[in-house]
């Protein structure tokens, strides 16, 4: 099955810093999504991005499907950005369940 690897596993930033999170996947995918899990465990939808680039405020994401990776950029980080960032991909098939990476744990210090 598809493997999803995220890097780095942990990241500590000072408020205001920028960061790039990476997601590699081992096979062609039809769907790729990024999520933020806040410290209370709630999941927040960030991007649906099987290819190309999208931006939403201080966050942007780029997926290069032909090279099997996606990047999530966080600019001018804030303490509220802390949590775990997950990448998940959609396997080919009828039911399209998402296969998840282990996440990048981000701590933004004031």
């Amino acid at each position, binding site marked *: 099955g598809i493997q999803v690897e995220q890097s780095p596993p942990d990241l500590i930033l000072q408020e205001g810093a920028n960061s790039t999170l990476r997601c590699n996947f081992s096979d062609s995918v039809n*769907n790729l999504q990024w*999520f933020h899990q806040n410290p209370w465990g709630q*999941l927040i939808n960030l991007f649906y991005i099987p290819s190309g680039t999208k931006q939403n405020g201080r966050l942007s994401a780029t997926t290069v499907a032909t090279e099997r990776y996606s990047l999530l950029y966080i600019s001018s980080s804030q303490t509220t950005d802390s949590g775990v960032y997950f990448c998940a991909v959609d396997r080919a098939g*009828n*039911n399209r369940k*998402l296969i*998840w990476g282990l*996440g990048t744990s981000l701590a933004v210090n004031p």
Partner: protein
Amino acid sequence: EPEVTQTPSHQVTQMGQEVILRCVPISNHLYFYWYRQILGQKVEFLVSFYNNEISEKSEIFDDQFSVERPDGSNFTLKIRSTKLEDSAMYFCASGWSLGYGYTFGSGTRLTVV
């Protein structure tokens, strides 16, 4: 932007009790999913549901689990006799078409004591 709503946000139950986790998917969506995340672990697929029936289930989704769409708007996950190891975050998701992205609810934290 439309949201998937899950209730309750946190439920504590005694081992052996039945629990029902509730989800209101986005209204025009046709595909429904439950995932779970044991503390500190990966998010895992439990079950997918389409056209009023289960389309796929994982090994985790044994006879203790069931799903239902009772009234065309709610989507529920029932655990018949909870075990300690069922303690986890449970996430509901929905999508209007395969492969076009799924919207996740914020989750229900289930604690079995």
